[in-house]
């Protein structure tokens, strides 16, 4: 299995050496890993903060990209960025099937995300963040009336 072999090798390498600012938190199996990430410069938006990333791998990894999201919990927030939704979903082309290269790996993705934060000075969410995040929950239906336009 390509995914298994590749992930085992990545894990080996990450245990031996990992790029600055990155920490492997959890990699108990070969389907889901957790990493922590800090930015390396003094960008006031992120400095002093540690962000938590969750990687999910399919059987098709690395031919297919991993799913990567920022995780929010008691100690970690979702970084403010015009390409990161407040539910942790990241809008980054290299994580998309179309633009993903199988020559990428977990560490290189983390480094891309690091530089995505480093290069940002906008303290904002993507346009339509609220609707997008809300769209993920069920819309409560109005139980009193149905309505619609009767224009012919």
């Amino acid at each position: 299995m390509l995914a298994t072999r590749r992930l085992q090798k990545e894990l080996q390498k990450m245990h031996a050496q990992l790029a600055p600012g990155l920490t492997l938190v959890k990699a108990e199996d070969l389907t889901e890993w957790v990493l922590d990430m800090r930015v390396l410069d003094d960008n006031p938006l992120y400095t002093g903060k540690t962000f938590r990333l969750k990687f999910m791998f399919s059987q098709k990894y690395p031919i297919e990209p991993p799913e990567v999201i920022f995780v929010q919990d008691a100690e970690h927030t979702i970084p403010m960025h015009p390409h990161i939704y407040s539910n942790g979903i990241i809008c980054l082309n290299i994580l998309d099937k179309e633009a993903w290269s199988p020559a990428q790996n977990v560490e290189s993705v983390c480094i891309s995300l690091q530089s995505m934060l480093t290069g940002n000075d906008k303290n904002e969410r993507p346009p339509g963040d609220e609707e997008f995040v809300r769209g993920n929950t069920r819309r409560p239906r109005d139980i009193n009336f149905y309505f619609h336009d009767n224009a012919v």
Partner: protein
Amino acid sequence: MESDDEINSFHTSDDEGMDDPDSDLSNGEDSDVEDELEEYDGDDVGFESQEKIGKQQKKPYEVDFKVYSPEDIQRAQQRTVDEVKGVLQQSPEATAILLRSFRWNRDKLIDAYMERREAVLEQAGLGDEASSGAKIMTVPGFCCEICWDDSPEMQTFAMKCGHRFCVDCYKRYLTTKIKEEGEASRIRCPGDDCSRVVDSKSIDLLVSEDAHDRYLELLTRTYVDDLENLKWCPAPNCVYAVDCKIKPRDLPRIVPTVHCDCSHEFCFGCTLNDHQPAPCMLVRKWLKKCEDDSETANWISANTKECPRCHSTIEKNGGCNHMTCRKCRHEFCWMCMGVWSEHGTSWYNCNRYEERSGAEARDAQAKSRQSLERYLHYYNRYANHEQSAKLDKDIYIKTEKKMTQLQTTAGMSWIEVQFLEAASQALQQCRQTLKWTYAFAFYLARNNQTEIFEDNQKDLEFAVENLSEMFEKPVDQLAGLKVDMMDKTSYCNRRRIILLSDTAENLKNGNWEFNVDFDTPR
């Protein structure tokens, strides 16, 4: 304009069309539908056309088209590549990639290539030089960036860009792109940040046969998708494509119904099932309305009213008469439609029925009821024909079985029972047409032409009901009704042709006025 031969080649999909140097499939030329439409000029519809039935006479509502098989398309594609590769001095593989990146517009490609060769190659993902010459080899000390394997005997491959991976990984990557993501003409090198497109020679070299077959199929798909004059037949599992010159901007004036070799009839403009005589934009609007109003239609007998202020449809969902419109927040009384604030606390026993605000609201209510009733008038007839066409078909299938029995028991020949199939087909076709005449009529504003239209509609309706009634007779009577039924079948067909010819003529000449604006295509 085209010769009669052209008209006669209507339903054929033979190779002649493809080898014809003027074939439309070889693309590029901007044909003009004016020519197409000019031909219908003249008033020779009506009775004359009745006499021409049976001949291969092109009728005002018919358009020219050709049907192509996958092999035809493959050949046309190949021929374009062969023609262009000499001009560009490129390999067939690179030429195909370049053509695809220009959506098979060869003139545009050649012009651009002559003007800014480097930029065109770069944009198509072909880097500087396009002849690849790549081959599979082993490379000492190589480690594959995909599997992270570094076995010394490993077979590797790289295109001109030099991004080298082991053959297994390359193969896996390409196979996933082709078989799972359905990509063909735009698969990029697996290398990080490399925009080079994987050419078909490299794909030949690397993927298994079934993935390669799929690859060719997908390439053919993109060829048809790229060309405006080609469309896939939308019938499930049909592999044919149809070539027709009708452009989106022509659709307000013509309804381009085409007949695929698989026997499916569809509209080239919107690929929905044949919807003559209604133009595409009308069909879109009507279907949207039916979808939106499907609940309304069901509510007619139930408790529904409109908000007296904003006319949103309101459904009563409980026993309370105090209603609040969800849209405009208007508060009113369900019983009398009066403003709620005028009710005080006596809501459970409404005594405001004669009040002015209520009377006015009821008038408005009556008006919109009327508009709903008008819609339902047309909708019910539309839906009825849709339903009846299905029933007619069921009857035919049952009858056919019985007729097969009759053939053996009553000694009827196969030829002798064919009139039933003809009747069944006429019924379905006429009902399909009638169905759309009601959507058409719903949007039609009254003018001098509408009366003729309504007469034609009525005549066809009558002819269809007559035939349909006969069609439902017990099987043992059918043999005796044969002549009568054949007459009625051809009468139905004639009435349909008259109706379609008249509507198509008037549509072409802009004689219809509609009571709404349709979104006209670009």
